[in-house]
């Protein structure tokens, strides 16, 4: 069976890419340190594959065809879209995939009971995937199975569905006959706004939400998080806060146990999330 060697949640704020260069600005030193710390955690865990749960930002997916959850099952993937090279300076890259693991999660001839994923044979990873990969695996030498979630185009799946996704990922991997060391990494935001009146405040638009979010993770209070994370509560915390839901998938993928690291790291973009569930 596969072994889950690390579950983690990290930020993907793309404006960090041009800023985290020496000399690193004072307010971003802790963010850089946490990326370093999580890169070391991942290196220590020695995964054969990363299952990466992230949200496409209308780059590959549009509302002409918008799945709730989609898995990429290609052997190789493009990373970074042209607008993101312009806006964020992210490099165009190629990322290895792991179709065998993708198939375990997706199903072979029929979709698995209880989860109807869409799939892509030509996934093209946007900054939500690329920023975590560039910081955590700079050589891009660990195969990736991308799990796309729709957190950006309402109607979005419910918080409970994100928990079910995490439970399903965990169960399907642990029950598989594949011998792989798997890291499950999710990425998203705490309270965050862009394209609205509370963007770029220099601080979090909703520190109370961020504090609760860290408590839910640190204490393994997934059910409380599901109850709290209504659409209205999330948009009230900032119009892109829906991406927090990817971390509920991480919590469930870790079996719902308390995180070993649960930090909201303050910087100019608000509080950046760093969550980890080290191996059981």
């Amino acid at each position, binding site marked *: 069976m596969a072994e889950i060697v690390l579950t983690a949640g990290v930020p993907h704020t793309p404006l960090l890419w041009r800023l985290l260069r020496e000399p690193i600005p004072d307010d971003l030193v802790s963010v850089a340190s946490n990326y370093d710390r999580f890169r070391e955690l991942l290196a220590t865990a020695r995964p054969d594959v990363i299952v990466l749960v992230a949200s496409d930002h*209308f780059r590959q997916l549009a*509302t002409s065809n918008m799945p709730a959850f989609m898995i990429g099952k290609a052997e190789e993937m493009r990373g970074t879209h042209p*607008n993101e090279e*312009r*806006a964020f300076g992210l490099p165009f890259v190629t990322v290895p995939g792991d179709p065998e693991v993708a198939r375990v999660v997706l199903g072979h001839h029929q979709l698995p009971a209880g989860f109807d994923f869409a799939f892509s044979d030509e996934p093209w990873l946007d900054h939500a995937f690329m920023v975590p990969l560039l910081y955590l695996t700079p050589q891009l030498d660990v195969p990736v199975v991308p799990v796309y979630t729709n957190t950006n185009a309402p109607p979005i799946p419910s918080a409970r569905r994100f928990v079910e996704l995490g439970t399903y990922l965990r169960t399907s991997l642990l029950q598989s006959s594949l011998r792989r060391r798997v890291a499950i990494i999710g990425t998203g935001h705490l309270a965050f706004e862009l394209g*609205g009146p509370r963007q770029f405040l220099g601080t979090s638009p909703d520190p109370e939400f961020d504090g609760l979010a860290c408590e839910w993770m640190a204490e393994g209070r997934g059910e409380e998080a599901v109850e709290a994370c209504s659409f209205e509560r999330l948009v009230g915390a900032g119009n892109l806060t829906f991406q927090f839901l990817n971390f509920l998938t991480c919590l469930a993928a870790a079996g719902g146990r308390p995180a070993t690291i649960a930090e909201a790291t303050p910087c100019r973009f608000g509080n950046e999330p760093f969550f980890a569930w080290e191996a059981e």
Partner: protein
Amino acid sequence: MSRYMVNKLMVEIDRHDESVAAFKRDTTAFLESWEAAALSPDPPYPVGGSLTPDERKAFADWDFEKLYVLGAHPYLLWHLVRAIYVPERLTVEELSDAFKAAVAEHDWPDFST
């Protein structure tokens, strides 16, 4: 109001440097070309679309406040206005301040798709 078409157009403008440049160079011509493209759809990913008069005017005027009120997706809207306003017309900081001031009174319009 078609949030779908508004969002689709924002994505298609911002997608490439060339499309951003063409929109900035001659916005009216860009919009006419975009709407004309929809008359000859190429499935399964047809380009182009159609806009209401209000939407067309908001794009023609680079009026981000109006697009915000119309329910343009906030993520796409911010990246579009950043692509077309910066650096020739405003710095990012100036644009962000102007954007926030313009949309503040409108709270969060429904941007469900």
